[in-house]
Each structure stands twice: as structure tokens, then as C-alpha cells.
């Protein structure tokens, strides 16, 4: 339901009178519910709300942005004028690339599909569930800590512009996860948790919490934490590496999603999260990986964390291939970045909240599934390590050299799982690593994995992204990297 159309009209009128050649305003109503349980205690039970708006004004090709949660008519006028003054200050800089003047008018409404209303599950029931999950991970005396959590986010957005656009959306996202920490005989503490990036994060309602199925996986996490605490560290070796979805999705995030953000490629992120080794002039030519590497952007993806009807510039998503048979085809873009290099827009502009400036974000990407199950790929592997759960990850500011530290490694010899190792770190260089991709699992293993906290921008914003995938195998990867090597 549109609640702010009158306020928006006032803001846009004030911005125009102040000299903006284009302006838009977004009103956000944000709700964030969190529950966190650790060792039998409820450490956080919160329900946070934030309502605010942000004006973008365009003056002579220069953007200005002003966000506020003050909601009187005088505040609306002040915000509109301030955005225009800010835009004008940037227009004083010579030799700049002018921003694109938006022209499209869109009138639409959209809501994230969901099957279970969060309001149908009482706070008591949510807490009882998490406490049961947490308790079930204390499978041995040396499990010193266990945790479980859930998050529910509901964001109402109303976008209005001087081109006449009026887009009203309700975005729903959720996540749930758990983990256990065990201490070994040499006092080493090891944590095993998940699913995914310490939780399953997707677009949707409470059905996402149900889909995490914590009650089933939690005791196994407890058992594996106990094993890990006394397990040997993986020795340094070169072998085949199998990534289950919990690791593969983050590998995609760091070494494909981020380098294909077009603002990065154009140098806009150079001071903070870096640039990209892939550049627009390489579209159609750059070999990013093996022929099995098929990556797409789809910001209408069912259950995607970044799934919307329209992005934060009012652009409607469409599925865009980014890499086809290993060859670079496109980038994730905003209106301004796409225009600079004549590439398609991917509706990838997002802001963390009403106080943050919208920018290019990874949004939803996917790896096209191929064939086989995880177990059939294991059976097909002579000498390798299967890894699961992410513990640490690091990549350079061109997105080339990376080192990842999964939680657990299972040695594979002649098609069978064997010893368990802790610290199964691995390292690689992006195009060589994806070039060694020789198996991609099929539809049965395909899952929509999300992260709730991708950092980018100055000031830093936290973004919610999705990287849907099955499982994969890479040949001859350096494993078991050590600090004292």
C-alpha cells in the first residue's frame, strides 16, 4: 500500500524548484527481527524498525544524495534542497563523466512471494525451536559452546521520480543457522556450523527458517565439531578439490560475482574493495573458466536474497548471461555504469537502507547445473579432498589470488571418503582455478544460497546476495596452506 505519495510529491517539487533536473525519492519501512541463542541463554531477542527516506538529485550530470528519518514537511523540503546543493557541489569538478538522465516512467507494485507468514509463528515457539536446536549440539563434554539463530527482514519500499514513476514493493528475506565449538586435547577450538555461510539465507518468509532444517543437521554439526577438535590439519598437497554448495557459493561470490561488478571494473571501488581483473573490453574474448562455467544474473530468481520487482533505481530485472561456456559475456551494472560501456542493465543497483546511496551490488547470480550428484562425483575421484562449511576467506583487490579456509575436509581416495581433517585451506588464482573446473553437479544438488552481509562502498554498506549452485570439482589445487610455509 502506498503511504508516502503525498510526501514524495512535496520532496520532488522542492528538489525541482531548487534546480534539480531530475530527482527521485525512496521511502523505506524496515523491520528486522532477530533471535540468538547460545549455551542455553537467549542473548538477543530484538525487533528493530526504521523508517526513512532518501532523495537523489541530478544537477548538470552530477548526483547528490540526502537521507533522513525526520518526517515533517519542513524536513522534506530541507532534504530535497540539501540533495540538490550536494549535487551542485560535485558539478563544479571539471573533466567528469556526466551521469545518465533517467527518462523512463514505471508504475508498478511487487511483493516477495512467501508461503509462511512470520507472524504466524509466535516468539515463544521461535525461541523454543532455537533452544532445542542448540541443546542438541552438546553431544559431548568437550562441546564448549553452541549457538542457533534466526533473522527475519521485511522492507517496504516506495520509489517516486520526477519522470512520474511510482513503484511500491515489499521485500521479504530470512535466514537461520547454528553451530557448535568443541575443544580438543591440545586445547584447539574448532567450530562446525551452517548451513551455508553459517546459515541458510533466502528471499521469502518463515518457510526459509523451516527449510534450514536445523533440527536435523544440528546434532551432526556437534559430532563433527568434536571430531574436528582432535583431527589433524590437512597436510600441504596438490590434489583434486570438491566443493559442496556451502563452499562453492562463496567461491562464486568472491571470484566471480565481485569481479563482474561493473563499477569495480570502471575504478569506482578502487580505494576500498578494489578493481577487477576482468574489464568491459574483454567481453566476448576473455576465457574466465572451463566450458562447464556458465554463470547468469537473475534478479527475479525465486528465493533470491536480492530478488525484487525493480531495483533501487526503478529498473526491472531480466536474466542476463554473464559467462557462457567459460567466456565472459556481461557485467553486473547500474544505469550509469552500463551506459559508460554500452552493456545491458542488470537491475543490480541496491542500497543497504534508506540512509545509504544505491550502488552496483552482486545481487543474484547462478551457476548452471550440469550432471551428477555429490556422491557420484566423489565416486569418480581418485585423489582429492571434499570440503564443506566456510571458516575464513581472503582474496586480493583485483579478485585474482585467493585463499579459503573451509571448516572441514574429507579425504577421498579411489572414490571413497576417508579421514577427516581440520583447516583444509586451499589457494588459487581465479582464471586458473575456474579453468580447472571439470565437474558440475546436476539439478538435484542445486540450491539457492545467500549471504546477508557482503561489504562494499564508502561508507561501507552490507548487502544481501545470492549465488545459486550445485556442487563442483576442480583439478590439481594447492591444499593445506600453512602460516609457516
Amino acid at each position, binding site marked *: 500500500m502506498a503511504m508516502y505519495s503525498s510526501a514524495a510529491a512535496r520532496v520532488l517539487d522542492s528538489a525541482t524548484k531548487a534546480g534539480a533536473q531530475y530527482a527521485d525519492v525512496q521511502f523505506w519501512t524496515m523491520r528486522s527481527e532477530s533471535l540468538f541463542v547460545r549455551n542455553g541463554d537467549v542473548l538477543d531477542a530484538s525487533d*528493530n524498525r526504521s523508517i526513512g527516506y532518501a532523495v537523489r538529485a541530478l544537477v548538470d550530470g552530477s548526483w547528490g544524495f*540526502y537521507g533522513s528519518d525526520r518526517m515533517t514537511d519542513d524536513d522534506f523540503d530541507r532534504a530535497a534542497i540539501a540533495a540538490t546543493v550536494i549535487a551542485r557541489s560535485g558539478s563544479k569538478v571539471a573533466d567528469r563523466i556526466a551521469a545518465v538522465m533517467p527518462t523512463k516512467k514505471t508504475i508498478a507494485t511487487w511483493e516477495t512471494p512467501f508461503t509462511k507468514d512470520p507472524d504466524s509463528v509466535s516468539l515463544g515457539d521461535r525461541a523454543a525451536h532455537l*533452544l532445542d536446536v542448540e541443546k542438541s549440539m552438546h553431544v559431548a563434554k568437550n562441546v564448549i559452546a553452541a549457538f542457533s539463530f534466526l533473522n527475519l527482514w521485511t522492507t517496504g519500499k516506495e520509489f517516486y521520480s520526477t519522470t512520474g514513476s511510482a513503484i511500491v514493493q515489499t521485500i521479504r528475506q530470512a535466514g537461520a543457522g547454528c553451530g557448535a565449538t568443541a575443544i580438543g586435547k591440545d586445547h584447539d*577450538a574448532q567450530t562446525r556450523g551452517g548451513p551455508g555461510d553459517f546459515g541458510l539465507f533466502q528471499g521469502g518468509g518463515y518457510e526459509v527458517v523451516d527449510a534450514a532444517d536445523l533440527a536435523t543437521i544440528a546434532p551432526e554439526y556437534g559430532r563433527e565439531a568434536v571430531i574436528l577438535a582432535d583431527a589433524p590439519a590437512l597436510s600441504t598437497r596438490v590434489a583434486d578439490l570438491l566443493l559442496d554448495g556451502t563452499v562453492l557459493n562463496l567461491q562464486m561470490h568472491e571470484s566471480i560475482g565481485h569481479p563482474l561488478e561493473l563499477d569495480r571494473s570502471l575504478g569506482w571501488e578502487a*580505494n576500498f574493495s578494489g578493481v577487477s581483473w576482468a574489464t568491459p573490453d574483454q567481453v566476448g574474448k576473455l576465457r574466465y573458466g572451463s566450458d562447464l562455467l556458465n554463470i547468469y544474473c537473475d534478479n527475479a530468481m525465486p528465493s533470491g536474497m536480492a530478488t525484487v520487482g525493480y531495483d533501487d533505481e526503478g529498473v526491472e530485472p531480466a536474466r542476463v548471461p554473464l559467462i557462457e561456456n567459460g567466456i565472459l559475456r556481461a557485467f553486473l551494472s547500474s544505469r550509469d555504469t552500463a551506459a559508460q560501456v554500452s552493456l545491458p542493465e542488470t537491475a543490480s543497483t541496491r542500497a543497504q537502507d534508506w540512509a545509504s546511496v544505491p550502488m552496483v551490488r552482486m545481487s543474484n547470480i547462478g551457476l548452471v547445473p550440469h550432471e551428477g550428484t555429490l556422491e557420484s562425483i566423489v565416486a569418480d575421484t581418485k585423489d582429492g579432498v571434499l570440503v564443506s562449511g566456510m571458516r575464513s576467506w581472503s582474496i*586480493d583487490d583485483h579478485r585474482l589470488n585467493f585463499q579459503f579456509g573451509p571448516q572441514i575436509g574429507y579425504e577421498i581416495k579411489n572414490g571413497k571418503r576417508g579421514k577427516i581433517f581440520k583447516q583444509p585451506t586451499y589457494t588459487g588464482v581465479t582464471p586458473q582455478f575456474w579453468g580447472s573446473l571439470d565437474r558440475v553437479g546436476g539439478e538435484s544438488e542445486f540450491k539457492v544460497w545467500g549471504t546477508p552481509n557482503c561489504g562494499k562502498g564508502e561508507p561501507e554498506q552490507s548487502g544481501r546476495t545470492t549465488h545459486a549452485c550445485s556442487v563442483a570439482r576442480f583439478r590439481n589445487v594447492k591444499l593445506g596452506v600453512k602460516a609457516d610455509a
Partner: protein
Amino acid sequence: MHEQDRALSLAETVLAAAKEADQAQVSITITDASYARFARNYVTQNLESQQTSISLTYYIGKKAGTVKSADASPEGIARLVADAKKIAERVPPDNSFVSLPKPEQLPAGVPSFFATTADASPADRVEKLLPVFARMKRSNLVCSGFTTTQTQTLAIANSLGVRVAYTGTNGGIQVKAIAGSTSGYAQSYALDYATIDTVPVAEIAASKATVSPEPANLEPGRYAVILEPSAFQSAVKALLEGVDAQNVLDDKDSWMIDRIGKPVMSPNFTLRSDWSDPRLANPPFDPNDGSAVKRFTFIDKGVPVAYSASTYLANKFKVPATGVADSMVIDPGTKSREELIASVDHGVLVSRTWYERVVDPRQAAITGLTRDGVYLIENGKLTKTLKNFRYFVSMVEVMKDVEFSNRSTLAEPESDLGYQCVLPDAKIANFNLAAQTSFA
């Protein structure tokens, strides 16, 4: 009415509305933040935002509900209290909760608010950028970065009588200069934006970017490495992230375990928590609960001696409460930065690092990448730009042999830590540069 007084008055109004709670805490945060971000020598994002947050934690015995909003109207406050109370009624308890902190006599704060920062306009910020762009164009360089001015007010009131408030400003600039295949970085931060001179910042970044036309290779291995303050802050966070009771007593994954009281690192290394350092000028209270923050020493001449503990953890584990530790100061050494460089026969100088991750917290083992200015030191002189490296070290091990420059400076806010440190350059004798990248 001063903003602090306004915030405290609002906190008291909310607290009064929650008088039925067994205990209650109200936090008010008012933030005004502006950024002029730039790339390719022009302003790409130019923004300001102002946010107010009212947070209420309502306790019924050991059960707690927390609600945040920005609605300070009587109806908004009533809804806030009702929602927080409803949560507290419905959730199981936190059995480790003992009590909110009681009021304490706090020392006077140090000057933390400067009107020149709070009142800086969009034109003021762009004015500071124009000489940066001009310097880059003179040398055919492009730059990326931002300048910022921020004001934050924080007030906390609880039902036991805690009443604290603080207002602080912060301003800064970060500049990355890019020349074809090489880059250089410089930054400057101060509470008083008027004191930030962007001309020398641009000069340092541009000079660093143009030491060599192409970056050179260097065989990966262990070298004497000098980390400039920005780089040192990012590496030492492997230690900083393990000095709290949460890590030592609760998670039991801190490097401090089994090392407290033992001389495990160089006697040159002293790490302190000091909110009153004028370069930091942090509040004398914990921003989480308003309790007093102590000034104390974590590592005393290479010996880990103490860890921090919030009121909650102090009650839980029956240890002394220190308040949060986010005012980290590392004491300087005796040699100038130039003297440190001159003392290296064959080593590397690192300006900045990125994407550090602690791989093994018990050993403070951390991996990361260098960026924006890595140089070979030969016979005491910087000779050429190098391609970047991935490093992978145990900070407990490498800090056994470290020397510091004689000047500690304020580094930029560190992304993972969420705060700034005051620290010198660090010369580490045996630093593992594990792999080299293909670029600078």
C-alpha cells in the same frame, strides 16, 4: 539545548515510560555523516544522511526484549515500550545476565567535538578535493577515494541511575593514486576537519604511485618487512580480536590462552586501551551499556597481562569489568621511520593491506594481501615498486622480533574492527610473504 542534553533528555523520557520493567536501558544515537566519494578524478557519489536511533532493552527478571526505532513521539515511545515488554514476556531467560551496570563516577572527557567538522558543507568537502584532482592530473594519474565529515551523539540511561552522553566529530580523507601498473595510498584523519591538509596527502599518494614505471617480482619468502600504520593496524587485528573475555573465557579460542603472564613477544611491544588519547577522544564509557571504560594495558613490554570484559561478561565470569576496548594505542619506539628503513639490508615496505582473515585465532594466524604501495628495500633504501603479496603469519610469532618507529599516528577506521587505532610503523624481522600476485 546541546545535542547531548537533548539526547539524554529523550533517553530519560523513554526510560520513564518503561518504569514497570525490572531493569531497563535506553540508548539514543544521532548520526550525521557526509561523504564525497571520487574515482577517476571526479566526484562519483556525494551524500549526507542523518539518523536517529532509539533502542530500549526491557528486562523482566533475566528475560530481555530489545526494540529499536526512530519515532520519538509519545505514541512512538509507547509502542516501543509495549513491543519490548512483549518480547521480554515471551522469551526464555538469559541465565548469564546478572544486572545492568550501576552508575559510576566517570572522569571528564577530552575535547571530542569540533564545529569546523560538524558544520562542513558539501562545498567545503569538494574544495578539499580539488587540489587532489589537480595533483593527479599534473602527473597523468587517476585517483580514487573519499573525504568525510561525521558527527555522532550517544546517550545512555538505565533504571539503576546510569546517565552518560557524548558528542564527537571525525573527519578524514583517503586517496589512492593509480598510474598504469602501480598505485600508492595515503590517508589523514582528525577530529577537526579544518586541520586536514589534503595537499600533502595527494603528494604522498602520487609519489608512491610513481616510484617505478612497472612493478618488479620478488621471490616469495620470509623478509624483514616494515608495515606502515595502515598495514600494521590490519595485521595486528589478529591480536586485537582475541583480547576480550568473550574470546578468552567464553569462546576459548584466544591466542592469550596459556600465554598470560609469559614474555611471548618483543619487549618493544606495549598495547594499551586509552579512550582519552586526544587523537581518539572516545567517550569514557562503554557505548553498549554506559559503564566506565578503564584505561589499562593488554600487552606490557611483550607480556600479555590482561583482557577486557564488559559488565555482562564480568558478572558472568566473575572477573573485573573494564568496558569495551576500542581505543587501542600501541606505544612508539625510538627510531624514526627513515632510520627503520635504513636498518634493513634486504626487505620490503608495505603501505597498506586488505582482506585479512584470521585463520587460526589460537595462534593469531592471519592471511591477507598487500596493496597500493609495496617497495623493495635494499641496503637501507627504497629502490623499486614490487608486485603485491599474500602474507600468512602468526602474529604471536612474528611480534617476537619487532621494532617501532618513534611516532604513533591515527590510522583510518578499520573495516573489521569498526574502530581506529593509534600506532606506529612496525619493522618485523621475519614476515612470511607467502605468494606474489601478478600485479601491483
